[in-house]
């Protein structure tokens, strides 16, 4: 199920809220939330929901074993990690790995293409955070399978994050405040996210698709229009979804961590990655970078650590060469910044912002493709090497059709827009109600009348 659908907005969520708020007792609330979350997941994966449930039971049991048999803790941890990653690898990377194996050895093994269970990249990382933090002693074991299940499957963050580590919700599972004020704040945040997704992201996606920048030769102007539209679409799509997740969490009394912090206002690439998909960056930092030694090692090892983390980050986004390349690209940029660029202490912020935007948007040129061939097409188009010239009537038509939403998108992406939203939500209270109502009605108009509504980060 998706948040931006008629069934979710007018049937699933109302029913869930009604039962949650009306039925007394905190255990009933947890049961309601768990049941609704399973239905939410099963709606999109009627078969693979069983896989997820088994995965949850497995991790829960392993947590119990770790508690009961302390001498075997390391062994249990390793087994759990291997199984969890193995499952993820199997469903997500098997096809790709077979292709790589074939191209290296010259054989042609066939790979059965399995459909990727929705959200597996997200919930696997969440269960891993539990077992690893349990091993480290940072959290207490969760003996109740329902509570553990709730932690993993909670529908606000199940499908597309933020990646909520167990330590964040450990206490909230049993002790949290549920109030009308929380409901209202959650609703407001949810509506902002819905509007970002449905009004901005989807329309920007239309502009991006109209340019066809990865499909064939396109004039330079059309290519840059497409790239910019994509970068804005991706931001509003993903940050909108995170807003909705955080808003929904709040409605049920949970405080999820922020996942985006006006990333296009960053003044360095390093800064960008502290503001974009924050929960993923911090997961990799916590469970890969720091265990590898982080930056408390010699230069060579430090650089290696960075490249490993960024290889994995790219690979997490997709089982394809262009995503790996995208990750490594950032690894190199971050190393460059760390050891060269950021040594220049008095670099003007504006220059930093321009540098960052250029680096990030060129990076999207790698990210938006499905294959390395498309990457070639995109970059030839961007730099005028595809023989289509600078401009064409068709690209002018696309520009005219898309310029308004692109400008609106750009205005909404600057840090000032975020500050404005926060200001409305805290001190300009009177404006909250009409602004949110207008956004809600407009969003509903788009949701109800458009049946096709893809969310970009789904198959992760």
């Amino acid at each position, binding site marked *: 199920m998706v948040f931006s659908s008629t069934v979710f907005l007018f049937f699933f969520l109302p029913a869930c809220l009604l039962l949650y708020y009306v039925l007394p007792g905190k255990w009933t609330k947890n049961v309601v939330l768990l049941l609704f979350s399973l239905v939410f997941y099963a709606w999109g994966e009627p078969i693979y929901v069983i896989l997820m449930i088994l995965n949850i039971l497995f991790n829960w049991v392993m947590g119990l074993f770790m508690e009961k048999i302390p001498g075997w803790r390391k062994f249990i941890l390793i087994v759990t990690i291997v199984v969890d990653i193995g499952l993820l690898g199997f469903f997500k990377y098997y096809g790709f790995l077979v292709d790589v194996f074939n191209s290296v050895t010259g054989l042609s093994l066939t790979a059965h293409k399995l459909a990727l269970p929705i959200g597996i990249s997200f919930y696997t990382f969440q269960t891993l955070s539990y077992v690893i933090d349990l091993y480290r002693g940072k959290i207490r074991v969760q003996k109740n399978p329902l509570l553990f299940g709730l932690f993993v499957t909670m529908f606000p963050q199940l499908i597309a994050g933020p990646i909520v580590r167990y330590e964040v919700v450990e206490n909230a599972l049993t002790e949290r405040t549920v109030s009308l004020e929380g409901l209202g704040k959650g*609703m407001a945040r949810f*509506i902002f996210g819905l509007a970002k997704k449905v009004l901005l992201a989807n329309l920007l996606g239309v502009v991006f698709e109209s340019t066809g920048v990865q499909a064939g030769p396109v004039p330079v102007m059309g290519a840059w229009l497409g790239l910019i539209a994509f970068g804005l679409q991706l931001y509003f799509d993903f940050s909108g979804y995170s807003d909705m997740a955080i808003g929904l969490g709040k409605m049920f009394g949970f405080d999820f961590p922020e996942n985006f912090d006006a990333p296009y206002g960053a003044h360095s690439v390093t800064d960008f990655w502290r503001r974009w998909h924050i929960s993923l960056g911090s997961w990799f930092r916590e469970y890969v970078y720091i265990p590898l030694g982080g930056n408390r090692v010699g230069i060579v090892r430090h650089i290696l650590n960075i490249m490993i983390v960024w290889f994995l980050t790219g690979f997490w986004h997709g089982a394809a060469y262009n995503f790996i390349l995208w990750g490594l690209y950032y690894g190199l940029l971050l190393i460059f910044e760390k050891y060269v660029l950021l040594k220049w202490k008095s670099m003007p912020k504006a220059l930093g912002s321009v540098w960052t935007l250029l680096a990030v948007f060129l990076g999207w040129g790698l990210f938006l493709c499905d294959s390395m061939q498309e990457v070639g097409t995109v970059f030839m188009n961007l730099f005028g090497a595809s023989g289509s010239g600078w401009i064409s009537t068709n690209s002018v038509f696309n520009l005219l059709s898309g310029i308004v939403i692109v400008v609106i998108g750009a205005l909404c992406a600057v840090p000032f827009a975020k500050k404005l939203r926060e200001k409305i939500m805290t001190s300009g209270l009177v404006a909250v109600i009409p602004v949110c109502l207008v956004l809600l009605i407009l969003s*509903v108009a*788009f949701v109800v009348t458009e049946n096709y509504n893809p969310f970009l980060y789904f198959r992760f």
Partner: protein
Amino acid sequence: MNKEKLVYSIFGILAAVLLIGGGVLHVVLKDRTYSEVEKRGLTAFSDVKSAPLADGSFMNAAENYASDQFPARELLMKLRMNALYTLGKRSSEGVYYGQDGRMIEAFEPYDEALLKENAAALNAFYQEAGAERFYFMPVPTAVEMYPELLPASAETASESAWIEEFTKELEDGIEVLDVRPLFRVLKNAGHELYYYTDHHWTTEAARSAFLYFASDLGWKAGTYESGVVTDQFFGSLASKSGFTPTRYDSLTVYRNLDPDLVTLVAHPSTGVSGGSFYDLSKLETSNPYEVYLGGNEPIITVTTTADTERTLLVVKDSYANCFVPFLAGSYKRITIVDPRYYTGSLSALLTSAKSTDVLVLYNVSTLSTDRDLKTMVEIE
């Protein structure tokens, strides 16, 4: 209670009530079966109940049902379209929204190979028919005659180029009836040649085309009175694009005033026959344009008391539906065939409806992608 808590508590309840209310309203209001605006059947609850769960089709049906039966759906569609229009959207599903609210269907770059195949089929038809007169009338659509009304920088292929290339392939015995010079004159004189919300030419345009060729081809001009049968027509392009029309179109029919001319129009596929070319009951349906000839059928046969031995075979698309009535006074029998619905062979047709004259009438947009005409010619 401080202000922040109060405002958000109120808002929380308000928003929840809206969402709950939407769901309740949805359930309580009776389901509709058909959408006039979208011109399609709407998902029914029974479609949802019967769909299997395991492959996700239940979920898809439920989502479609929830959206299709949402209260005030049409109002929300209008809201969405107006918002999109404000943002600069001028094209939807291949239809441009031009100046004055005129909807114009784009002409896609055409398939050269298909053009040659269709020309060859037409030539074969001409040879096999052995008719005394063989006419071909390719009618351009609005995109060709009103390019200046398209939104800025809209680019489409050229129907004129298609006409030139196609007619070049035709045998000399085929008489090409080119309406373009006439249309340019009529356009400059301010006549409405096309509808604002539909892809057809107006009946006035059809009548003018008829009169333009009548004297040269020996057709009787006849005296007609015209009448508007509906002034609240919005047509194919409005439905296809989803753009909100800013004005309705009017549909006009022409009645022959010659007291000696009696016409019998027979529809073998429906078993109906009558004295009129027009089926006024269609005005109440989702496709009022079917008032002309009752719509598209495989074969329609017209017999008249016209004082002539000439007979006519018309092979056509829907553009001919408003044109054929003007030919009643010039032929004793007219057989109207639509290759998109007629599944027989051309030979069979030429035997059962051997005619002195043949008229092939298509609009260029349709003919450039049509495969049914050549299929009909190629069947043994």
